[in-house]
């Protein structure tokens, strides 16, 4: 289809950002004196290119006319042909034409120059024709054109990377997140201003947005609030003292020194081994258990997890998370926590029973929330305890509860250290909460158990550990079986391991014999 160059995909695929384009965007930012998003700049760039093209066409058409079949043209007239890429030609001849449907009309001979030569066109042709519209002066009258927004929607994947490259390479432009401003338009933020911002956050003892911090800075009123906010965000991002702890789309500044040191590093009990598994190898029972166990390392995109639409979700506390004072972010729990704008979000846990407010942190890159160690310890929650998250009106707050019972000593599955190694046995322990019978693992000497924690990158094969633990757990069960969930829970007392690789070892090794409904026994003769 004959069309303007800017209307063709190839034009945008081959786009090179020219110095002239950057000059134009410079002018856009200078004139508005406001930060612009990358999308706004891309739209401005496309509009600029469209206008350049229009201008070039108008220059070429100076003294000429847009060809229309209804027009009357004389020798020597200069015509521009919309359907021929706006090529121009000169009328060099004329004759009378005839068509049985239309009768007589005029035919003009137009010379397009070498190598195209002369072609003939209808003129004084008043019959219906798509080019017979408008007054013949406006190029846009005779064609359908995609707007800058349409072109952006179609070709943004080609345009944006090139635009970002060009902007980032230019010393004139600065950006914070997805917003751009001219370096020369930045409001002056001095070391003194940053010290005041630090003091304000320290005093408030909570993350603050730039807009709040600006109230104390008294920047010159000659710059707009949006530019002031951009300038402060830009300066804070470059200063090591500050960290953005807002949820996605909201920048909230906090002091790095006020952030718990442990938030910045993955607790050793949550460090994951480099183990994979093949979902196809697991039967329906094991796949079902994979969905039931809330483990942040499970790739839930592969599993049919029903979305959490309710206002609360209950999960079972695992040994690693109990030790680390954390909870996993999984397909079921994710809707209860904000996603970080950067790496972390500061949130507040609210104890549903007491109303106590507990600072917490969402660690987005590693899919867990931190800050519950004291709460677990205070309520003497065991591995296997039911924990419920309750949605609140604030995206930065989540209520948390457990199911308390009157404290009593109960016989439960427990782990202890004997002769320098971990053993599992039934133990009489103080229980304060309801728990999952399959996942509970009590303990009487946490420090001794901790001392035997294996590095996730241990060379000891997982199957060896699994055999050892399965034998011990089968030994203390009168039925002589062990449930896959119990194995998962017990393995994670010794070494961090997601359920998928554990279940895969169960399936792959003949010594583990499935008994149905998730229960397994051990056949030493097949080991």
């Amino acid at each position, binding site marked *: 289809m004959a069309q303007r160059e800017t209307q063709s995909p190839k034009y945008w695929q081959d786009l090179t950002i020219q110095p002239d384009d950057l000059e134009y965007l410079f002018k856009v930012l200078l004139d508005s004196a406001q930060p612009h998003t990358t999308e706004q700049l891309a739209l401005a760039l496309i509009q600029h290119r469209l206008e350049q093209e229009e201008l070039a066409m108008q*220059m070429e058409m100076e003294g000429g006319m847009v060809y229309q079949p209804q027009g009357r043209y004389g020798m020597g007239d200069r015509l521009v042909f919309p359907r*021929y890429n706006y090529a*121009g030609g000169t009328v060099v001849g004329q004759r009378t034409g*005839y068509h049985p449907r239309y009768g007589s009309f005029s*035919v003009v001979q137009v010379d397009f120059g070498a190598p195209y030569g002369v072609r003939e066109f209808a003129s004084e*042709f008043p019959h219906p024709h798509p080019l017979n519209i408008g007054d013949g002066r406006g190029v846009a009258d005779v064609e359908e054109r995609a707007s800058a927004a349409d072109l952006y929607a179609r070709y943004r994947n080609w345009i944006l990377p090139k635009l970002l490259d060009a902007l980032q390479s230019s010393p004139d432009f600065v950006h914070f997140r997805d917003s751009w401003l001219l370096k020369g338009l930045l409001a002056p933020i001095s070391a003194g201003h940053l010290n005041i911002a630090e003091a304000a956050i320290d005093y408030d003892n909570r993350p603050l947005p730039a807009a709040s911090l600006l109230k104390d800075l008294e920047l010159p009123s000659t710059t707009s609030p949006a530019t002031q906010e951009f300038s402060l965000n830009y300066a804070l991002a470059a200063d090591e003292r500050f960290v953005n702890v807002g949820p996605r789309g909201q920048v909230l500044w906090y002091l790095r020194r006020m952030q718990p040191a442990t938030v910045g590093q993955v607790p050793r009990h949550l460090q994951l081994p480099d183990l994979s598994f093949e979902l196809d190898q697991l039967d329906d029972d094991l796949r079902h258990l994979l969905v039931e166990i809330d483990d942040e390392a499970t790739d839930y995109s592969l599993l049919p997890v029903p979305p959490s639409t309710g206002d609360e979700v209950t999960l079972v506390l695992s040994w690693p998370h109990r030790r680390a004072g954390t909870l996993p972010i999984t397909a079921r729990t994710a809707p209860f926590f904000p996603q970080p704008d950067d790496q972390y979000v500061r949130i507040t846990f609210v104890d549903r029973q007491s109303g106590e407010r507990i600072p917490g942190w969402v660690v987005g890159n590693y899919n867990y929330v931190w800050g519950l160690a004291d709460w677990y310890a205070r309520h003497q929650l065991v591995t296997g305890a039911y924990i419920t998250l309750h949605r609140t009106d604030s995206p930065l707050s989540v209520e948390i509860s457990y199911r308390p019972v009157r404290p009593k000593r109960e016989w439960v599955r427990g782990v202890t250290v004997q002769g320098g190694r971990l053993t599992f046995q039934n133990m009489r322990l103080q229980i304060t909460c309801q728990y999952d019978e399959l996942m509970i693992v009590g303990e009487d000497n946490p420090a001794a158990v901790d001392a035997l924690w294996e590095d996730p990158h241990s060379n000891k094969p997982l199957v060896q550990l699994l055999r050892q633990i399965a034998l011990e757990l089968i030994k203390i069960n009168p039925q002589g079986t062990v449930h896959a969930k119990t194995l998962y829970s017990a393995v994670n007392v010794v070494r961090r391991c997601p359920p998928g690789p554990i279940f895969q070892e169960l399936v792959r090794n003949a010594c583990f014999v499935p008994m149905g409904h998730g229960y397994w026994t051990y056949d030493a003769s097949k080991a």
Partner: protein
Amino acid sequence: MGEYIKPTLETKFHIDFDWWQEQGRDLDIYLASRLCPECKQKCSGSDEPEIIDWVDPYTGEVRRLSSLWETIRSCCSQHPDYITAQTPLTYAVFLIFVANDNKPLTPIELYEQLGYRPASTILRTLAGHQVYYGIRPVRSPIVRVRRRAA
């Protein structure tokens, strides 16, 4: 010749008369075989068919064609056996363009008129290296060197 653009289901095609000229083929031979019995009888009595100034419905360009084109467009194309299920696909597409006075059509629009071959098959056939009956994507025969605005 304009730049090559890989045709899609949205690409408009038409009969390119420049192709017939380049190939030195006679369009009338392919048109005459589709005359209906009445028109065939009328034509058999006359000498050479009359030449008309055909106006391109898309560009306004004028082509000197024989009046067979207009006879078939206005009369013979209305006959039920103008295109049948036995008509080869490429020839059927050619006849659709004649019936529509060579108005540019996409493979989807051709399918809507033809009805018995999917648009993807029509596209695959027309987008190949071989040009059938001059049917090609619509593009400008003139490449314009554009001046850049100051």
